[in-house]
């Protein structure tokens, strides 16, 4: 390849990544700062783990994290089912009535401002409660439904693009040999798109775990999620415990992403060897 390394591109990449990572790095560094002022380094007593211990004893944050975890797990599992079905339908059935509408419905939640989705879901839940008595009040159920509605759109995209890159002749061959479509799906399609489904699950989990706006609209009394608690704290300014929380989040996400991409790289190498 006759591509000269351009200093401009290298500078742009360096500055871009510095822009993306320095703020994250600063949170990690200051999570070890003893001072309550967070950004004023207390050289005498730092680094320290004291805010890590105080986070572990913060009941409010722990309770909220537990609620967030429940919502995120149910949401991710539900979104994977709905999103896989939708992605499969869009990738494999090129013509059916309502395909255009269906495609639009799965794309719109990706870009729709969250305040609109949140408000509309809440009004739906209120109207449903008034007319059929379900859902009675708002809480984990309504939040999960709200999260699934936008998470499934992301899973759909991931699954659909994975299906678009793999050859459907394998599926056709199996069907020619007499396998039922449903068997073909479970024996051939599912194992091939499994990495996409896994990353879809993780993506849906993270989207739900991080969501503030839709949760705020659809939650009820006593069901504050972690982002809701963080938001109310952060509005008042910086807090050392939030830095700790951020550091822990970054560690988990990094481990997860690196792990999954190594595993996927290995899977795709094996695929190439097999082919």
């Amino acid at each position: 390849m006759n591509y000269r390394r351009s200093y401009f591109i290298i500078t742009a990449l360096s500055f871009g990544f510095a822009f993306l990572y320095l703020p994250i790095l600063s949170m990690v560094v200051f999570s070890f700062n003893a001072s309550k002022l967070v950004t004023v380094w207390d050289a005498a007593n730092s680094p320290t783990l004291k805010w890590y211990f105080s986070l572990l004893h913060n009941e409010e944050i722990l309770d909220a994290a537990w609620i967030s975890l429940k919502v995120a797990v149910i949401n991710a599992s539900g979104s994977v089912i709905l999103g896989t079905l939708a992605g499969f339908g869009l990738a494999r059935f090129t013509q059916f009535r309502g395909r255009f509408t269906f495609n639009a419905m799965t794309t719109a939640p990706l870009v729709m401002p969250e305040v609109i989705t949140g408000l509309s879901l809440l009004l739906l839940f209120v109207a449903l409660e008034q007319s059929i008595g379900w859902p009675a009040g708002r809480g984990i159920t309504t939040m999960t439904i709200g999260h699934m509605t936008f998470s499934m759109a992301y899973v759909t995209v991931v699954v659909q693009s994975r299906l678009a890159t793999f050859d459907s002749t394998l599926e056709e061959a199996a069907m020619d040999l007499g396998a039922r479509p449903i068997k073909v799906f479970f024996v051939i399609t599912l194992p091939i798109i499994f990495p996409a489904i896994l990353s879809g699950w993780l993506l849906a989990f993270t989207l739900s775990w991080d969501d503030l706006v839709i949760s705020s609209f659809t939650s009820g009394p006593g069901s504050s999620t972690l982002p809701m608690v963080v938001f109310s704290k952060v509005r008042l300014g910086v807090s050392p415990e939030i830095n700790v929380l951020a550091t822990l989040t970054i560690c988990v996400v990094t481990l997860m992403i690196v792990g999954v991409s190594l595993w996927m790289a290995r899977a795709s190498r094996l695929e190439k060897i097999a082919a």
Partner: protein
Amino acid sequence: MSSGGRRPTPFLERFGVTGRALVVALPFVWLLLFFVVPFVIVLKISFSDVDLAIPPYKPLLEWVGQNALAIHLNFNNYAFLFTDSLYVNALVNSLKVAAISTLFCLVIGYPMAYGIARAQARTRNLLLLLVILPFWTSLLLRVYAWIGLLKANGVINNLLIWVGLIHEPLTLLYTPLAMYIGIVYSYLPFMILPLYANLEKMDWQLLEAAEDLGCRPYQAFYKITLPLSRNGMLAGSMLVFIPAVGEFVIPALLGGPNALMIGRVLWDEFFSNRAWPVASAVAMLLLVILVPFMMWYQSVQARESAGAK
């Protein structure tokens, strides 16, 4: 497989319900119920009167007497949006902020996406991972990081004072600048990823051919790379612009009390003023403005995937 003969028609297919229909039906019905129907309800409530009740709006349809149905259609909420300059200003300001942020994302993101697309396979995956990683880390926490950087005794001010460039801390937090930084910072990966996906498919031999024929590198870039990456630029811009117009978290945390963004106005109408019908009217207005952009995005996506085949 052993019988080999024709299978009896499955039960549901006798009624014209095929397996295909069932696959699509579940997500279809879900989205219809929890994504489309809610908008109808928002539309309905945007025409209601505010009421001091739970929920705080008056019914649109009411049975009066025996068989008469009274419809209380009320356009006051919409009229109100246009009489109080707050809403129009917030809307115009949101569109402006989103457009400028999108432009900055494009200017910063394009060279990055280009650099990643032209890097060697091993480096490319690493760089791509580095773009995706912040995208997976909580938006709220990444915006929070900027509070620590920008505040009066924050990292940037401390650094500038330590270097001796300034003596008094600058007011950075709760300014429009802080809000722009926050939006560009948060949405940058959404610009880079579709641009990269587009540039990665580019046939670089076209550039070599152009250079062989005497084209200067910047000319080749301007005449070949830029037009060919049009769909990537459009897709990335829509992914930044549309959600940024309705952004709530970033203006609320970094923008200060004067940061008039429509998403924030909607939030305050709903949570602070409990004016659900007004909030619904704001949502409808915002939706009407954004739907054309969403349709544009969808058609760009369709073109892009058609081109890939």
